[in-house]
C-alpha cells in the first residue's frame, strides 16, 4: 500500500467546516446558544429569589480583587517616581509619563542591563523552550499512551514522581554540573532543562488516550505505514487541542521561570525578565535615588502584557484543554 492511501483528514472532521460560512460573531452566538441548551436550566435548581444577584456580586468582588494589582500597575506606569508614592494609587496624575517610562526600558540603567534585552531573552527562552517541551512531551506522551514496552509503566511513574522533587534539589546541583560542562551563562543552559516537562507528558498521555483511537493506528499499521508516518499524519492532527494546551502551559512556565535563570546566569545580558526585575527591585531599595520605581512598574506591565494577550487569544484552548487536569491519576 502506498502512502497515498492514508487519509490526512482526522476521522471526525470538524463539523464547523461542514456548515455554510458564518461570521465569527454568528458562530459565537450559536455556540453560546448551544451551550445554554446543553446545560440544565437554572430554574430547575429551585433557587431563592435574588440568589443569582448575590452570586454575581460575589464574582464582581473577586474580579475586583483580581484586577486591583493589574489596575494599579497600569495607572502607575504613567507616573514619575514621586507620584507613585505621592498620589492616589488608582488614578492618573500629572505629568503623564507613560511614553517616557516606556522609552527608558530601552536604556541600560545602572549597568544592570537593558530591559529590552531581557525581554528578547525571555521571548527566546520561552519560545524555544516551550515549543521544544511541547514536542518532547508530545512524542513521549504518545509513546506512553499507545505502546506497551517493558517498563513503560514504571518509567511513567518515575516521570510523574519527579514532580515531588523540590526545585532546589535539581537546580542547584545543575549549577555545579554546568560549571563543569561550560554551560554557565549559556542560553542552552536555560533552554535545555526547560525541555523537560513532566506535566506536559502527563497531559499528552491522557489526551492521546482519549482522542486517538488505537484501532486507527492499527489500521494504518496494517496498511504498511511506518510509525513515524503514522504519528505525523494520523495521530498528530488529532492531538492538536492537547498540544495547544501544553504549549500554552510550557511557554508560560518558561516565561515565568525565576529560580533556574537566577542560579545559572551571572551575566546581566542573559537575564530573562523575571531575574532582571528581581534585580531592579533589590537595587531600588539599596540605592534609592535611581528613578528605578517607574521602570519597575512599567517593566512589570510590559512583562505581563504579552502573556495576557496570548491568553485572551488562545482562550478556547485553556478552557477546554485544562479538562485534562481534572482527570484523576
Amino acid at each position, binding site marked *: 500500500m502506498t502512502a497515498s492511501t492514508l487519509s490526512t483528514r482526522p476521522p471526525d472532521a470538524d463539523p464547523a467546516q461542514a456548515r455554510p460560512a458564518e461570521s465569527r460573531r454568528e458562530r459565537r452566538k*450559536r455556540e453560546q*446558544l*448551544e451551550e*445554554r*441548551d446543553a446545560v*440544565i*436550566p437554572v*430554574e*430547575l435548581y*429551585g433557587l431563592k429569589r435574588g440568589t443569582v444577584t448575590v452570586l454575581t456580586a460575589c464574582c464582581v468582588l473577586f474580579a475586583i480583587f483580581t484586577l486591583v494589582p493589574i489596575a494599579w500597575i497600569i495607572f502607575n506606569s504613567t507616573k514619575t517616581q514621586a507620584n507613585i508614592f505621592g498620589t492616589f494609587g488608582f488614578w492618573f496624575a500629572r505629568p503623564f509619563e507613560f511614553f517616557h517610562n516606556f522609552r527608558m526600558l530601552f536604556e541600560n540603567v545602572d549597568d544592570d542591563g537593558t530591559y529590552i534585552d531581557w525581554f528578547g531573552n525571555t521571548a527566546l527562552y520561552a519560545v524555544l523552550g516551550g515549543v521544544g517541551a511541547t514536542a518532547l512531551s508530545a512524542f513521549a506522551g504518545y509513546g506512553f499512551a499507545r505502546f506497551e514496552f517493558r517498563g513503560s509503566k514504571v518509567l511513567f511513574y518515575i516521570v510523574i514522581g519527579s514532580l515531588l522533587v523540590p526545585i532546589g534539589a535539581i537546580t542547584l546541583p545543575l549549577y555545579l554540573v554546568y560549571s563543569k560542562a561550560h554551560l554557565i551563562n549559556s542560553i542552552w543552559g536555560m533552554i535545555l532543562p526547560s525541555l523537560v516537562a513532566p506535566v506536559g507528558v502527563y497531559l499528552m498521555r491522557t489526551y492521546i488516550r482519549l482522542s486517538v483511537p488505537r484501532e486507527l493506528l492499527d489500521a494504518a499499521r496494517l496498511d504498511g505505514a511506518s510509525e513515524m508516518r503514522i504519528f505525523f499524519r494520523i495521530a498528530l492532527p488529532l492531538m492538536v487541542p492537547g498540544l495547544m494546551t501544553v504549549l500554552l502551559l510550557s511557554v508560560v512556565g518558561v516565561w515565568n521561570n525565576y529560580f533556574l535563570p537566577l542560579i545559572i546566569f551571572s551575566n546581566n545580558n542573559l537575564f530573562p525578565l523575571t531575574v532582571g526585575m528581581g534585580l531592579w527591585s533589590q537595587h531600588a531599595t539599596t540605592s534609592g535615588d535611581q528613578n528605578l520605581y517607574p521602570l519597575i512598574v512599567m517593566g512589570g506591565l510590559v512583562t505581563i502584557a504579552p502573556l495576557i494577550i496570548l491568553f485572551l487569544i488562545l482562550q478556547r484552548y485553556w478552557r477546554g484543554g485544562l479538562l485534562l487536569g481534572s482527570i484523576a491519576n
Partner: protein
Amino acid sequence: MAAISIRELTKVYATGVRALDGLDLEVLDGEFVVLVGPSGCGKTTALRMVAGLERITSGTVSFGDRVVNDVSPRHRDVAMVFQNYALYPHLSVYQNIGFALENKKIEKAERDRQIRIAAATLGLGDLLGRKPDQLSGGQRQRVAMGRAIVRSPSVFLMDEPLSNLDAKLRVQMRSEVLRVHRSIGAATLYVTHDQTEAMTMGDRVAVLQGGVLQQYDTPRALYDRPANVFVATFIGSPSMNLYEAGLSTDGTAGTTPTVVLGSQRLPLPPPVAARVAAYQGRKVIVGVRPEDLAVSGAGASGLGAPGVSAAGASWTGASAAGAPGLVADVRLVEVLGSEQHVYFSVDATPAASAPGAAAAADESAQEGILLGGAPNGVARLDPGSGVRPGGRVTFAVNPARLYFFDPDTGRAISLLSDWPLGLAGERRSKRAASCN
C-alpha cells in the same frame, strides 16, 4: 380524565432546530404507552418535556386536569428511568434507591421498609450493599427502576431503558418491565427506537418521525392499518415491500380493476377495488408484507394468514383459481430454521420509502452475496418451500392484504367505513378522514 394529556406540544431549540412539532397524545390511568421512532424523531424530547427537564416552546402538558407546564419537575410527582440509568456512582444500591426518600424526610425505619420492598420486587435483595460499578448492566437497570418505583409516582417515564442491554437480556427484561408496571399501576410513557418492544409492550403506540406524530394506535391497528408509508415500513420485520404501481382495468373485455406492477397485473376482487376506487387510473404505491407472500406450488403455504379477508373470500396458498400470482427471481435465501427469508426481484420499481424507514427496515435486504441484480423484495416462507437462489418463483398474493398509499403524500388510501373505531375513539376516524 386522562392521566397525561399532551396538546400541541412543540419544542424548538435556540439554534432553530425543531425537535417536536405539535404532538397530541393522551395516556389513561394505568396505561402503558410507547413512543417509538428512529433516532432524532423527537420521542425523547417529548418525554423530557413531560418530566419537566426540557423547556416547553409551546403547547401544554397536563396531569389529570392540572396543567403542569410551569410546575417544576420536583413537584410533578414523576419518576424517570434514564437510558444510562443515572445511578449515583458513589452510593450503594440501598442508598441509590433510598435517595429520594431521604429528601422527603421519611424516617429511617419507614425508609428501610420501602427500600426493601422495592428491592424485593426487582430481585435486588442480595445486592443492596454493592456499588453500581460492581453490578452488571441488567442489575443496574433494575436498580434504576427500583429507584423510580420506590417513590410511588403517579406518572412513570422510561427513556430507552433496555437499549444498553444485550439482545437476550432485553427480551427477558421486557416482561420484567411490564410486571413492574402492573404492580405499580401508574400511567407509563415508554420511549424506544425498537419496534418490537413497542409492539409487544404497548397498550397503545405512538409512532413519531421528524418531530411529527405519524400514528397513535394499538399495536394491532398499526400493523393492520398503517396510516402512511412510514408506519407501514417501520412496523413489522422484515419491513413491508413497497412498489410503484398503477391502477387500471385489465386488458381483456371486462372492467376488473387491476394493479399494474411492472409488467405484471394483479386483479383485485370487488371489496378491495372499492377501497381504492378513487385512485382508478392513477399511480399508487402498493405494499405487501413479507409474511403475506406464499409460494404457489404443491403443498407449500405461506406464512400469511390463510384466512378470511374483510370481504369473506377465502384463499389458500395453492394456485387456487382467482388468486393472483407474482412472478419473481430469487436472489438470496436466508435460512433461519423456523422460516426462510427469500430475497427476490420483481420487474417493478421499488417505492422510495419514507426517510428513516430505511434505517428501520432490514439492512440485509441490500447486502449479502447476490446472484444477478440486487433484490427489491423479501418474503417469509416455510422452511420446506423448496425455493432456490437463481430460480424463478410465483408468489400467491392475497389481494385483501395489499396496502395502498398515495404516491405523493405517502398516506394510506382507504374508505372511512373501513376503519373500525378503536380506543382512541373519534380521533382515529378523524385521522382516517384526512387520509383520503
